[in-house]
């Protein structure tokens, strides 16, 4: 065992040391997703909020545990492949530990009595390890030692948690059996059957010896009474679902009920006055919320400013009371349809000068009395309203004279991100401003695959902005829905007929999960055409989860969507563009990655798969079709591409948010009418892809 030189905190060179948590906090923390994201769960109310979506690591963080001895959270950083420490800002600080296991870990917690970070992995070549966390104990500090190998201790568990006082660690395996683990020797006892099965990727204790377990596929949190020896799991709360899931909580903390969630806050960015500390707009809900916009209103303990809005996370978007019946055109009137539950005063603002605040001269509705039901409201946009995305706030209350900030005793506030367009602009959406189309790929070209059409599945939506018939701006948004691929693939979109030089490169905006990707420039340099490299390797943004091989294609491998993207593409001059729909989305082989032993050299960027008869980009190497067992029948001179001799494709575009087949299920079995569609060359079976035409047992469900 190597001796390490002692420093107060042994970190990688150059990394700053962050402050610990102020105290043993009551919240439970869930760290999820391929690009680590942390939520705080209030166990007394079941409410959860996004705490940090930028943890300073592009990779997963697993096996988290709270150390009450120093009030830091410890976890395993996949990118660094060593344990890491997290302070109150949730930024990763890798520790200078010699990883004697050589593997990554997703099961772990801090043993508070012995002040060690304990991690576990099944398998003979790995096992149960402890890493000392006490700087005063120089013999053990940051030393990793093996307690027992993973064949002797053989448990199918996905996290563990230490009891606040009895010294044992506890976990629930995927069959729902509760195990008590003695980490001094790696032995365990099976205590009983909790009655719930699944992958419980996050488990934690409270000070009363209650164990909480969070199930990956649906986010449900169950409580088990360890101290009371009642081992059946009781459904306690609903949290966010993810295939990557790890829980940390200060086991010595009580469940505090000091939060008041009977208040409705907005969710515009913080500069608009959203947080309580900024005297943000808020409406009291105590005594029964009877006055609200739309269908309902939900309460929260504090504002959740974009991009951390509760409406995105908790599955209940209560911003539903305002419809924009017309677009918002600078210098014109617009029509809003406002739905109210009862009579009240409506006040509203739009940040037309995009300064991040609702100025008093930006009030578009002032003390307008609205009644129960739908109200048609006419507003005016100033001539100098700046074109582009901005925010609008609507407040309904019994009181008149309400401003953009501050609290009132009843009603609701709804914040909307809105799109102001130039006067005379037209926008074409595909499939609509709120729907999705799907692109699905088999990634084995030129070899015929199994037609489960889920090696890569992307949901896409496009918006094309025109002025006088010429395109001035485009927006593409999408979600990585599934990756059922062993290969590593990238995803890009080409704009047919548009040149790279026509794009206003400096004003491109590309975000992933609402976080800017700048300074990354997605516009591919080199080719003359406008090609956007959205992800070089989709596996960098999604994860299969602890018990699964692929992302969102296998049974029981549910997860929320882990990667969403959005790109705004302004053009330098208005151009003619006849293309529509999804443009030319394509997958390519991740540069440097293996794409089959039939290629002696990794093909990388030269390898592309497009929709049938869609020509590839300039980077494509048609020589890659010459594989012995390949069945590609492309004929470039006849403009026939990416099809077999029978005309079958390696990619499909489907005009809906498609329920794609499960792993290894041929699309023909999941959707029998696909046969009619294909054999008739599209004359019949037009809607073969709709859910009502599927075999529901054969499509992937979360």
């Amino acid at each position: 065992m190597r001796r390490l030189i002692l420093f107060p905190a042994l970190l990688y060179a150059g990394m700053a040391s962050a402050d610990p948590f102020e105290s043993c906090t009551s919240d439970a923390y869930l760290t999820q997703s391929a690009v680590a994201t942390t939520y705080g769960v209030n166990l007394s109310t079941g409410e959860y909020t996004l705490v940090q979506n930028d943890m300073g690591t592009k990779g997963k963080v697993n096996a988290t545990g709270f150390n009450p001895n120093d009030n830091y959270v410890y976890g395993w950083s996949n990118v660094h492949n060593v344990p890491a420490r997290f302070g109150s800002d949730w930024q990763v600080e890798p520790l200078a530990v010699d990883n004697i296991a050589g593997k990554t870990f997703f099961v772990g917690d801090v043993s508070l009595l012995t002040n060690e970070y304990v991690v576990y992995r099944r398998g003979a070549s790995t096992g149960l390890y402890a890493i000392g966390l006490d700087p005063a104990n120089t013999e053990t500090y940051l030393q990793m030692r093996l307690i027992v190998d993973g064949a002797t201790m053989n448990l199918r568990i996905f996290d563990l948690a230490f009891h606040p006082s009895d010294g044992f660690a506890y976990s629930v395996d995927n069959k729902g059996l509760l195990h008590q683990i003695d980490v001094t020797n790696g032995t365990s006892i099976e205590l009983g059957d909790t009655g719930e099965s699944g992958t419980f990727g996050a488990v934690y204790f409270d000070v009363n010896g209650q164990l909480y377990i969070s199930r990956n596929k649906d986010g449900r949190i169950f409580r088990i009474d360890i101290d009371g020896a009642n081992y059946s799991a009781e459904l306690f709360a609903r949290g966010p679902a993810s295939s990557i899931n790890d829980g940390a909580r200060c086991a010595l903390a009580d469940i505090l009920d000091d939060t008041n969630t009977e208040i409705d806050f907005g969710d515009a960015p913080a500069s608009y006055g959203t947080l309580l500390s900024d005297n943000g707009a808020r409406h009291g809900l105590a005594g029964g919320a009877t006055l609200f916009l739309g269908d309902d209103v939900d309460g929260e303990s504090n504002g959740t400013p974009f991009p951390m809005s509760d409406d995105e996370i908790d599955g209940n978007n209560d911003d539903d009371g305002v419809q924009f019946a017309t677009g918002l055109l600078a210098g014109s009137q617009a029509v809003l349809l406002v739905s109210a539950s009862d009579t009240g005063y409506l006040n509203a603002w739009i940040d037309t000068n995009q300064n991040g605040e609702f100025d008093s001269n930006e009030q578009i509705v002032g003390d307008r009395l609205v009644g129960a039901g739908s109200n048609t409201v006419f507003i005016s946009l100033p001539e100098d309203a700046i074109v582009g995305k901005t925010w609008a706030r609507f407040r309904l209350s019994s009181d008149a004279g309400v401003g953009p900030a501050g609290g009132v005793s009843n009603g609701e506030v709804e914040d909307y991100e809105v799109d102001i367009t130039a006067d005379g602009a037209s926008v074409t959406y595909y499939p609509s401003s709120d729907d999705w189309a799907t692109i699905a790929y088999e990634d084995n070209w030129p070899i015929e695959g199994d037609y489960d059409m889920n090696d890569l599945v992307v949901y896409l939506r496009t918006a094309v902005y025109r002025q006088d018939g010429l395109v001035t701006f485009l927006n593409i948004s999408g979600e990585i829905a599934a990756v059922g691929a062993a290969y590593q693939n990238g995803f890009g979109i080409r704009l047919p007929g548009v040149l790279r030089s026509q794009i206003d490169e400096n004003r491109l905006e590309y975000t992933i999960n609402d976080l800017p990707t700048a300074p990354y420039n997605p516009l591919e340099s080199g080719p003359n055409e406008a090609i956007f490299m959205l992800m070089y390797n989709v596996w960098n943004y999604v994860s299969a989860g602890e018990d699964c091989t692929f992302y969102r294609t296998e049974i029981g491998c549910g997860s929320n969507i882990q990667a969403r993207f959005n790109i705004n593409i302004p053009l330098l001059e208005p151009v003619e563009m006849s293309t529509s729909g999804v443009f030319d989305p394509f997958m390519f082989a991740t540069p440097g990655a293996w794409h089959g032993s039939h290629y002696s050299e990794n093909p990388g960027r030269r390898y592309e798969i497009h929709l049938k008869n869609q020509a590839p980009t300039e980077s494509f190497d048609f020589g890659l079709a010459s594989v012995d067992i390949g069945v590609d029948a492309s004929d470039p001179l006849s403009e026939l591409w990416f099809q077999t001799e029978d005309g079958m494709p390696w990619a499909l575009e489907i005009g809906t948010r498609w329920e794609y087949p499960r792993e290894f299920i041929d699309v023909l079995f999941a959707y029998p009418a696909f046969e009619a569609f294909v054999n008739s060359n599209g004359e019949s079976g037009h809607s073969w892809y709709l859910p009502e035409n599927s075999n529901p047992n054969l499509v992937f469900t979360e």
Partner: protein
Amino acid sequence: MKKYIATFPLVLLLTACGGGGGDGQLILAPSQPDTGGDTASGGDGNTDGTVDGGVGGTVDGSGGADTDGGADGGLVDEQAAPEPYVAEASASSELTSDDHFDFSTRWDMNIDFDIEAATGTTGFLSICTEFEFDGEDAYGVNFDKCALRTSIVDGIYNGSMAVTNDISSVLAVIWFADESGAPVYNEFELVNGQESIQWR
């Protein structure tokens, strides 16, 4: 500040409805589908009507050319008894299609509006895919599900939109935004692959 000015009295606008003509009604009757070009004829192998419960069977749901009406307000054509579709092939690798067939599940449709009665007006046009007729004289529209949003001057708009196969009708809504204005609606029933919709 520019306003939408309906210089043409709405009453006249209503009586001069295009596309099939309602007499003085706010709602314009659906225009005749323009069956140009490559539309699919309704009866070859499509099944329509009610939807099968699921295992092994399939019917062409809302996409069939024979089903009637808008999203909710229309009538389901119940003439033909649904025949569950059973695939004969045992794998997709056994299917064949023409090399030029592109598997597209959408088509591009022209929008050819030249509304005589709207000459001299400025309005805002939306073409939306989720809507419900209220049985009397108006529609409930989900304005978050629109495929086209544009200003429309003199009642003239030429453009195109992509329509997915499962859409059997779309609703055009024009607002002439003065304080007393109510929107004008025109529902278009579509045949799959329909070349254009027209409003005169």
